[in-house]
């Protein structure tokens, strides 16, 4: 009990989020009679305050110990990802104010879901116990299903939500089965206990099954091939702010679980920051296969998309593949590279989705044709999109270059040079579809004379907030490496 009390102090961001959740639920009920706009303003304001407080509380040095009887690791990885989740949620909330799909929608449930899912992402990223991993993952999933189906009158949204639920149920079920097998093998739920048990005695072929089942659950969250089938449909069906959120938040948390499970649970840190698999199964090959297949299929399938949200869905699959390269490196550097990638990915991908939202506001379409002639209507938006897409391509001088650089460097350091080559070639392929979007925006003539775009002040602020890191990021290699260095301090490595 005293441990629980002592842990509460290090649990402030999550507590703030839960507090905000209680407040918005009550506020939602209390303002039923208010006008939509008024209650919406109040709820968004309250949520923003909660998320902002959680963001601020999550900054600063991580404590280094574990919380709640070794359920949560209060280590560097969590320390870096907590503010990332809070920031993603803040952007999502502000996006949802500008998304046409959510015009006139009640926000009560949306903000409650957002607060819950943000907290759950933090739990997920910190979990070092099999039960915690499953529960937090399930919480994120359930909240995500509902967010995807938020527009209950929209058929696509409902279909997407249902599809997501079915895939999610299968994937988490499969993962749960794997986790229970692992418990059967090792007799403990604690990840570090699992490692100790596996290091003491090889688990044999059962561990292979466990790895695959768990990889299925994680692969579902990060949208890795062949667990990606839900992704394009769900991205298309969900309202765009939710899509943006899904493409960044749960993906990042999924990678955190991947690091925890594979690096802490079934691998042992060796000398000079490398990790070695324990339990008699060399799972590096599994990650490599997943990385190559995911990258390649994501990029190639994206080439043929004509819908912007589908294109970005496949692009996000491809990025997951690229990040997996970092995971295959089996080194602290790899962990750092993953986290660096996730941080940069937040800004570039949310930026691209913001443009999608703003374009949809005026054109009402997500089809690529709808992007024609945007240079004439808004050079600013076109330039911003250009910056986001170039960053996603990984072309210097934009920040996305660093993301790819560190991942490939980690692979090369781990003597996986050929994997880096595959990654570089994939990036070259990716250029095709990103540049296609830009060409359509800048070059193709739109239908007739369309009015120039007007931005609200919020749009301008959001664009600025997302463009700036992409442009000046290239100067901040040192700061990025500090973040990466913190993230590498896992619970047992601190």
């Amino acid at each position, binding site marked *: 009990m005293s441990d629980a009390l002592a842990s509460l102090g290090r649990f402030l961001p999550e507590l703030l989020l839960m507090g905000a959740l209680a407040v918005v639920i009550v506020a939602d009920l209390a303002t039923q009679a208010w006008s939509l706009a008024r209650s919406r303003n109040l709820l968004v304001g309250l949520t923003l305050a909660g998320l902002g407080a959680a963001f601020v509380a999550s900054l600063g040095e991580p404590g280094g110990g574990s919380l709640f009887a070794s359920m949560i690791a209060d280590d560097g990885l969590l320390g870096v990802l907590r503010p990332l989740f809070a920031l993603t949620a803040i952007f999502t909330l502000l996006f949802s104010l500008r998304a046409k799909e959510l015009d006139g929608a009640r926000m009560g449930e949306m903000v409650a879901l957002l607060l819950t899912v943000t907290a759950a992402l933090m739990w997920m990223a910190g979990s070092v116990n099999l039960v915690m991993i499953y529960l937090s993952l399930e919480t994120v999933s359930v909240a995500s299903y509902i967010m995807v189906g938020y527009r209950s009158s929209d*058929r696509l949204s*409902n*279909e997407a939500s*249902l*599809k997501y639920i*079915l*895939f999610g149920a299968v994937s988490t079920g499969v993962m749960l089965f794997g986790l229970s097998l692992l418990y059967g093998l090792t007799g403990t739920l604690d990840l570090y206990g699992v490692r100790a048990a596996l290091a003491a005695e090889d688990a044999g072929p059962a561990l*292979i*099954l466990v*790895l*695959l089942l768990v*990889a*299925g659950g994680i692969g579902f969250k990060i949208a890795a091939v*062949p*667990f990606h*089938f*839900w992704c394009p449909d769900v991205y298309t069906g969900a309202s765009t702010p939710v899509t943006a959120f899904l493409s960044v938040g749960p993906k990042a948390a999924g990678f955190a679980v991947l690091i925890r499970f594979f690096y802490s649970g079934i691998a042992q840190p060796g000398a000079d920051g490398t990790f070695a698999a324990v339990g*008699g*199964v*060399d799972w590096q*090959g*599994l990650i490599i*296969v997943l990385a190559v297949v995911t990258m*390649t*299929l994501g990029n*190639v*399938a994206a*080439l*043929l998309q004509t819908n912007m949200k589908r294109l970005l869905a496949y692009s996000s699959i491809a990025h997951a593949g690229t990040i997996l390269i970092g995971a295959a490196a089996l080194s602290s*550097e790899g962990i750092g590279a993953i986290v660096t990638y996730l941080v940069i990915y937040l800004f570039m991908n949310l930026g691209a989705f913001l443009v999608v939202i703003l374009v949809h506001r005026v054109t009402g379409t997500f089809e690529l044709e709808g992007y024609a002639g945007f*240079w004439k209507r808004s050079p600013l938006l076109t330039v911003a999109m250009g910056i986001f897409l*170039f960053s996603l391509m990984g*072309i*210097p*001088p934009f920040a996305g*270059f660093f993301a790819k650089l560190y991942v*490939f*460097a980690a692979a*090369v*350091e781990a003597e996986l*040079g050929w994997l*880096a*080559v595959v990654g*570089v*070639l994939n*990036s*070259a*392929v990716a*250029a*095709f579809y990103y*540049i296609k979007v830009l*060409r359509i925006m*800048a*070059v193709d*003539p739109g239908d007739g004379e369309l009015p120039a775009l007007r931005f609200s002040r919020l749009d301008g602020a959001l664009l600025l907030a997302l463009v700036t890191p992409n442009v000046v990021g290239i*100067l901040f*290699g*040192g700061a990025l*490496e500090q973040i*990466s260095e913190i993230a590498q301090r896992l619970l047992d490595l601190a």
Partner: protein
Amino acid sequence: MNSLLWLIPAIPGLGAAVNGLFGRHLGKRASAAIACGSVAASFLLALGFFFTRFLAEGGASARVEQSLFEWIPSMGVEWAYRLDSLSMVMTLVVTGIGLLIHIYSVGYMSHDGGFSRFFAYLNLFTFFMLNLVLGANMLLLFIGWEGVGLCSYLLIGFWFERPAAAQAGKKAFIVNRIGDAGFILAVFLTFVTFGTLDFYGVMGEIASADMQGGVLTAIGVLLFVGAAGKSAQIPLYVWLPDAMEGPTPVSALIHAATMVTAGVYMVARSGVLFSHAPAALALVATVGALTAIFAATIALFQTDIKKVLAYSTVSQLGYMFLGAGVGAFAAAIFHLMTHAFFKACLFLGSGSVIHAMEHAEHASGGHRHYTEMQDMRNMGGLLRHMPRTGWTFIVATIAIAGIPPLAGFFSKDEILWKTFEHGHFVLWGIAAAAAVMTAFYMSRQVIMTFLGDFRGGAAMEKHLHESAPSMTVPLVILAAGSVVAGFVGVPSALGGSYRLHTFLEPAIYAGGQAPPAMPHNYALEYALMALSVALAAAGIWFAWRRYRNAPTRDASLAGSGAYRLLLNKYYVDEIYDATAVNGTLRGGEGLYRLDQRVVDGAVNGSARVTMLSADLSDLSDRNVVDRAVNLVAEILGAASTRFRRLQSGLFQSYALLMLLAVVLLAGALVLWS
């Protein structure tokens, strides 16, 4: 003074920021002043460094280094600039010729709506180009490398309302992806091998350990793949001719004088590495020579004034790589420098001509397509109307043709001589043949454009006039440069002392040893020199004979297969489209189908099965999923209709695929462990 080094790139960067962010509110004058002023400031700073540090005794080995901050600590990479004799020459070329082209652009772009945007791009380009030449390590060079590429795409597509321009920008971008993939892999390989990316560090280690071949060959080849992309060598040259869709000053600055020569600079910068990787060097030389002749043959019969110059540029870049490939890095840089003068002069001259043509067309009420205005078959006799443009063009043509004592003679002849001296007789033969062609097609261009009678119609001719001084003054300066620039590298055979070469060597062979000079064989050198002058003269004479009285006589060749082959550039674009581009797309489609259609097919199949077994009740649904869904929905009293439409078959198929994949992965893992 040393601490001011960062200002050389920073000032144009600042200019770009100001013009990019506030350009619209500044007005054209202020925009132009900021753009030209910032490049001028950089040029003056560079001159300052040159006079104070490099012109003094032993200045050739002077080094100005400035590290701004620790950039990528884990790789030990700093944001550091280094000015040595090689980057000094490059910096002077970039800022000096860049300044002239900026000034020229003020006149050329004066009526364009995107005036401030244009100058923002141009300044941004200068910023990145200076990062490229001043970067002390490969990564900073790469940042500049990609940055200039970006500006190049933006500037090629500047008039993106022309579909051809947009297409060209996209093509340049895509082709360069391939090259850049090579470059970044070279960077990784270098880092893994040497643990550093600093040029001096890497080169010093190679020299001191006297490494040979092996990994150096791999790095060299990968670097050259990058260089071939940026500097338009076979097989990646296809983007450069199309890049002429951009405004002409851009063609002059980026696609002739500076950016496209970045590959040559990079090879020279890695001179020590390439010297220790003979196989890579041989590849550079061979590709260079082949590109030189290949592009020269295409240039023979082009009719677009800029296309001729574009292929000429590709060909001349081939020369530079040939020089570098035979180990004469200094000669390559020498040619890079003289080429910057005369090719910039030629491009700006062609811009002046196009400007005059378009102006005259508008003034006479015509509305022909812009490609007609660049067609030399519609020109002729322009020397009378635009004497300054004409004469500077002619001077630059003589320079590129290789007639002494103009600049091109010294640099080109040196490459030829070095090729011969190192025993590459076949390559020498190829390069010599290309030299004849160069003289031929350039003379043809002068004759078709400036001599004879105007063929564009009398109405238009009345309105032809010389361009504004802001355009002709840079032309005159560049023409003067084309005359004298060669004197910095007069060979010892002609009483000179290879001043540029001795100046460059400490930088090119930094950390290592310059290879020992070959014993002089003046007699042979004189003979070859005479031969190359004779070849150039022959080329000019052929062109004179052929076109003097019938400038458009090529039309009669239309039936000839060889002529059509050349006119259509060997159909390389078409071949690439048919193979690489379509191949990728088709492969993509195949994989996408695997992802989607296989599933759909399974669904369709399952749909049939489902139809057969479906109950007649209209309330019933197709399968388990919907049944469960409906159950819940009905029980809760909610409308179930919205769930009905779920293409429920998909789910089972996806799940099945996932399951199969897991089983396959399991098998793979079992085999792996």
